[in-house]
């Protein structure tokens, strides 16, 4: 990616902010471990989402103060959490019934690669080491909307939005929207549809760092995010 693009691209917090704007009041939401967890910080005022964690909690809140952790009360990332009024505990089979059974409104995950048909690769680079999948393969099936938050390219500048994934798949045809550091892209009918892009970025420059054709249906909105 060129220095010019690096200078204007969104931070992870800004990508998370943009993703948070699409979460409706009262939605049941699962956020992947790491970067996607930031989405919870940017819920628009007046809306309250209910957050689900795979290990058996609905309705958790922020991290406790240091020294006030209860290690029976953690999230899927093994971090201490707190409860909001109306929270619920349940066992792992019920937790994944919520996931696979189509009861979650949104799952927001990170990605190594996303293909134009909605295939997602986010669990293994395929390079050896100890493989670990956790709940990723379950989460991509069942949530009504599966969205990805990611940098538009790898650190080396290679596209992460591709015609086909080259890394081991997490799920087939599962992603419906991608929030990147440069654009908001829907996956519709086996193709990328550009919905929003940074106003200072030309379509051609965006296409040059995308590994499959970006289609336009109607107008492309400006991706405008506050400084965070």
């Amino acid at each position, binding site marked *: 990616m060129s220095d010019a693009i690096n200078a204007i691209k969104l931070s992870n917090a800004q990508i998370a902010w943009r993703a948070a704007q699409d979460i409706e009041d009262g939605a049941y939401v699962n956020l992947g471990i790491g970067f996607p967890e930031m989405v919870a910080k940017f819920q628009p005022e007046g809306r309250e989402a209910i957050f689900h964690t795979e290990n058996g909690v609905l309705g958790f809140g922020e991290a406790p103060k240091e020294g006030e952790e*209860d290690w*029976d009360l953690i999230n899927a990332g093994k971090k201490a959490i707190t409860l909001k009024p109306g929270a619920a505990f349940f066992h792992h089979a019920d937790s994944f019934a919520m996931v696979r059974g189509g009861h979650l409104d949104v799952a927001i995950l990170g990605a190594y690669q996303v293909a134009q048909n909605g295939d997602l690769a986010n669990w293994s680079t395929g390079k050896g080491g100890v493989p670990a999948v956790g709940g990723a393969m379950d989460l991509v099936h069942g949530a009504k909307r599966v969205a990805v938050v990611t940098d538009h390219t790898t650190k080396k500048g290679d596209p992460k939005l591709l015609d086909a994934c080259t890394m081991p798949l997490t799920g087939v045809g599962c992603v419906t929207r991608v929030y990147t550091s440069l654009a908001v892209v829907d996956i519709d009918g086996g193709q990328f549809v550009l919905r929003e892009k940074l106003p200072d970025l030309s379509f051609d420059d965006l296409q040059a760092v995308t590994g499959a054709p970006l289609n336009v249906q109607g107008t492309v909105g400006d991706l405008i995010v506050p400084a965070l």
Partner: protein
Amino acid sequence: MDKTIASVADAVADIQDGATIMIGGFGGSGAPIELIHALIDKRPRDLTVINNNAGNGHVGIAAMIEQDMARKMVCSFPRSADPRAFTERYLEGRIELELVPQGTLAERIRAGGAGIPAFYTPTSFGTDLAKGKPVEEFEGRSYVQERWLKADFAIIKAQLGDPMGNLTYRMAGRNFNPLMAMAATRTIAQVSQIVAPGEIDPEQVVTPGIFVNGVVQVANPQQEEFLNRQEAVYP
């Protein structure tokens, strides 16, 4: 009826070499550390261990692995803050890994406990983890056949228990524990407190005693996270 067992050593006395053991917990939350350590004292070998993870630090399951008691791990996420015990042995080919998506792991255990030999799930369809498994289409969508998981023993952690084997859990410490209780030939629960029959409101029972063979009291159980912060090593 009295399923009470006097000590953690007595509770694990029947676990022999080659056994398949389900161990409750998600990371340290709901992990029966005292039962695991009692098992390390007895040191059966060649075990197949079913748990979401593969140990953290030098206590609990990580300590079992360091003592080379486990031949195989069945888990979804064999990584942790300090996964060296498993990682070193896995990369040297000294321990086997069956990697299972987390929801599939939970459902395979539930199926084992419920007498359902196989089921279909959308999870893992089209991925490396579905290789060699039957696939079938239902209502226009493809699903992967997964089989039940059962075990010779389950060692689990609960909050309250009674002599009938009824159990309640504490917060997110519930996780895999009620499922594993159903899926093993013999289920042993460590509980923070054993109370008299009737003292647990039947409305509050999470695991009914029919799934539990033994209950041992461990007041003030240790937390893996605390032990790891103290850099504890077992034994």
